[in-house]
């Protein structure tokens, strides 16, 4: 398996919100990277916002990986949101009905306002 072509940087925004900046290719191979980012966000995070503005490629393995992240977040009673999705990737979220569990916002500002409610 080749090394995943992705970076995920975690930013803390306030006490309980973390933003994960995803840049590169989201495939099943990057599960360790995503889970490391999730761990870095820490248990004190109650709302996790995924920034997909740097998303370059995603296959069905990547969608499956997001589902497993969702399960982990639900188990910890953490809310998951996303923003920065292009029209193409937003349609994939809708097609796979992932948008019913991960709330999609247009911008970081609206995502942070949305999850703060």
């Amino acid at each position, binding site marked *: 398996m*080749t*090394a*995943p072509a992705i970076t*995920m940087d975690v930013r803390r925004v306030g006490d309980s919100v973390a933003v994960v900046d995803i840049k590169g*290719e989201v495939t099943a191979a990057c599960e360790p990277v995503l889970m490391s980012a999730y761990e870095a966000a820490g248990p004190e995070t109650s709302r996790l916002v995924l920034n997909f503005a740097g998303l*370059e490629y995603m*296959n*069905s393995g990547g969608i499956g990986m997001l589902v497993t992240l969702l*399960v982990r977040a639900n188990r910890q009673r953490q809310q998951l949101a996303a923003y920065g999705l292009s029209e193409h*990737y937003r349609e994939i979220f809708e097609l796979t009905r992932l948008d019913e569990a991960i709330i999609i916002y247009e911008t970081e500002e609206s995502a942070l306002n949305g999850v703060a409610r």
Partner: protein
Amino acid sequence: MTETAGPDKVRSAEEIGLSAREAAAAPPEGAAETAPPRDVASWAKKVERLEVEQRDGVRGTNVAGRRLTGPVQGFGKMWQKTYRMNVGPQITPEQAIGVWRQHFPEFWPKGNRFAGALTGVNPGDVALLDLAIGGGVKLSTGVFVLYADSESFTLMTPQGHMFAGWITFMAEREGDDTMVQAQVLMRANDPIYELGMMFGGHRKEDKFWTATLTALGQRLGVPDPVVQVRSTCVDSKRQWRHAGNIWHNSAVRSVFQTIAAPFNRMLRRDKGATSSTA
């Protein structure tokens, strides 16, 4: 930061037509805005409800008008089941997936029917299934081709299917050898199916995909195919808010459709006779 970019990044830039300098200079956000991602053709277009025409050899019920269901919409515990097989160094991942996509129905175990498009497995296709569930009853349902590229393809299930989720078929290099794999990420769609999975359903499914991979291995020239099976319960919680999925249960509907089939045939015959004498 949790990880660094790997060698695939350069290859992906070349594939979308960027020079090395452009790829290095352009911010990812800009790249996403100016050029369509290279996965565009691999994904199915968005659909609200499935549309499908009748196909020979299958009953073709319980699919048209149904919505797709992923693991988020299912009822039962969430499972990830992986069936993996070494096909040796001679076959490339692309060759393995090419054969699998082109001849997909031929690898299914006896007694089960997969009626897909004649051109193989392509994004957006809907295939009709008749699955042997015992007692002479065929469960009629379908699958939707969510994603397909040269190294993988994914099927997603509609409402009423035994499980809500997707099955990804892929091939990759591991050392010198090519590994082929079917991976199911699923929840039983409703309480009836969940009970069925607990009482023999998981074993039956393992047998089904093991037989499928074995048949593929034989087609690819593997003398003695060995399939490794790994099951992981990803989420042990049941989603009771989706218990109402039972309304769409294709197994229950298939039983009624099987019972009603002779009467429907008689009705059609009578109607035909009436119209020909009129």
